[in-house]
């Protein structure tokens, strides 16, 4: 639910010396993204994507840096970033397992796969394993309904999942 937000008024920002949005990334964004739009704010989503790609997630300090870079208030960056489900405001695992929760997968028994994953990894959806290897997520339709149930592991799509091949897929990841 995009409209559910955490109270950010009392949040402490953990700061580090080195910026998340470094000069190289800034230059790249200026040349490849910002130049294509009539105002800097329009580059918000691509910038969030780029920083997340580099850092793995979006720490509060990074949001503040993005605000300064695009000329908008940090709170506005937070406002936009917290609306979209794909921005990580908390650290995520090396592999994110997005198990599709759409109606077709539901009809074809995705629930048992979810139970299995939760038992195998000892985490609930939205959580990350202690060793930081896996994060488990529910995701809306991945558009592979013809070969449901399906899951996206980082950027690789896996279809026709069963308890057995799901095991194999996860065990093959290092």
């Amino acid at each position, binding site marked *: 639910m995009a409209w559910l937000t955490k109270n950010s008024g009392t949040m402490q920002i953990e700061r580090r010396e080195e910026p998340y949005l470094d000069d190289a990334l800034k230059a790249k964004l200026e040349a490849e993204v910002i130049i294509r739009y009539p105002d800097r704010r329009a580059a918000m*989503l691509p910038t969030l994507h780029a920083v997340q790609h580099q850092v793995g997630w979006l720490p509060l300090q990074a949001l503040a840096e993005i605000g300064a870079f695009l000329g908008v208030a940090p709170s506005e960056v937070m406002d936009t970033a917290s*609306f979209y489900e794909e921005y990580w405001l908390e650290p995520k695992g090396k592999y994110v397992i997005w198990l599709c929760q759409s109606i*077709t997968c539901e009809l*074809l028994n995705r629930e048992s796969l979810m139970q299995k994953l939760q038992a195998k990894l000892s985490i609930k959806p939205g959580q990350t394993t202690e060793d930081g290897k896996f994060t488990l997520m529910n995701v809306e339709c991945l*558009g592979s309904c013809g070969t449901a149930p399906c899951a996206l592991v980082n950027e690789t799509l896996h279809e026709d999942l069963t308890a057995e091949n799901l095991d194999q897929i996860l065990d093959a990841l290092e």
Partner: protein
Amino acid sequence: MTPEELHDVGQKHREQDAKTPHHVRVCMAAGCMSQKSDEIKKTLEKAIKEKGASDPCKVKCVGCMGLCSAGPLVRVDTEGQDSVMYQNVTVDDSSEIVQSISDGKPVERLVCDTNVPFFAKQQKIVLENVGEIDPDSLEDYISVGGYSALGKALAEMSPAEVRSEVEASGLRGRGGAGFPTGLKWGMMARNESETKYIICNADEGDPGAFMDRAVLESDPHRILEGMALAAYATGANHGYVYIRAEYPLAIKRLKNAIRLAARAGLLGHHISGTRFSFQIEIRLGAGAFVCGEETALIASIEGKRGQPKPRPPFPAQSGLWGKPTCINNVETLANIAPIVNKGGAWFASIGTEKSKGTKVFALAGKINNTGLIEVPMGITLREIVFDIGGGIPDGLSFKAVQTGGPSGGCLPDRHLDMAVDYDNLRDAGSIMGSGGMIIMDEESNMVDVARFFMEFCMSESCGKCIPCRVGTYQMHNLLDRIAEGQGTHEDLALLEELCITVACTSLCGLGQTAPNPVLSTLRYFRNEYLDLIGEQHIPAFVGQEASQ
């Protein structure tokens, strides 16, 4: 490129192709690729190389061949002979397939019969190149007539003429609502502005829908050409493709297509040496279903929360950055090039009185042939489910078909003989939607289905307007109670009342249509709700007789 250059490139490519008597097409859409079709391609190539060049044979990556349930699919095309389609191919089958080509005898155990209704009953316009051409090759697209519509429009037609062809075609928006495309373009063209935008809405988020993904993965240039034609017809000069980040393969192919088209001068400044300039950018979504709504999509491109705005002003008057903006769905844009090439009257000859052309559907759920199909408007649901779809698996019987995703409804067997078009579906309590069709068998629980879609709407509500934010939450609570067997008649009455309130008072399409799955299941499967409430129900007509 000028039309002459296009013609030459296509001609040359066709001649080059004709030198190879055998073509092996391997499906490289996400469905087959997840089953290792890329490795099958490699082993096929290796097997061909090992056999030597006595009988030239070329392996080609193509997009979705449709029958996803039988993937990976491989098709062998030999000049002067019927094509042979192979299903459920594995890496180990490669050498046998290659051997069979020189033997001239197909591998019987893998053959997929294409003389069945699944293939025979389809009529392809949007998908005509899908599964035929290599999505990563511009020459391939040009060799099947690609970009000739753009060339023709720029050389021979005025923008008004392009618009009038589209208007004459009767094409209606394929995103779901069915707004006439010609009318939308006309509104956009009338608004004078130095900058105008065309947006391709590829934020396909309906549960059960994967048509746009397949088209983008299999024939990306068709969309670019459609966008360029739309831009020419409406006076736009910038285009955005707003695509879901969950479709990594489609994004990759589209990026490549834009790069190739720009390099060939088919996008960019002074296309074909004319005054027409048009560039396209890709924008990735970030996992918000509501961004498929056009005003929310605009907010998202502007870098804000994807929340809708009241209309008017319509985007055609004041859209992206306050400029006139035209937003069309992927499938709508895929129809434009054939309309320009063959004329609006040709397109209007297909389909029903008020719904012209064909429609792509994604068949999924409890059905034998899942996959992607394209059928003329006006086909019956029965033909789709039982002829093309091959009926219900495991000997079970058909219960309902869900169309239109979370904005649509569930139709029972008594509607199986209904002709599928925008108006019939709406009258029956569902909508066309973007084209997802989920089939349910007798074991499916309709209250659970309604609850599923309500949960979806609840979690995807953007929260801007109260009817949708609070209404979907409360409706979900009520459905939860009823599904768990703790509901009462009062709950059911309240649920129905809330449905009407949310439908009438929500700001955008998401809220306005969120009650549809509940309303349609209440209309056709009320007994299932009553069973769960636990009171003995009396069939409606008996009740009426008793009261008389």
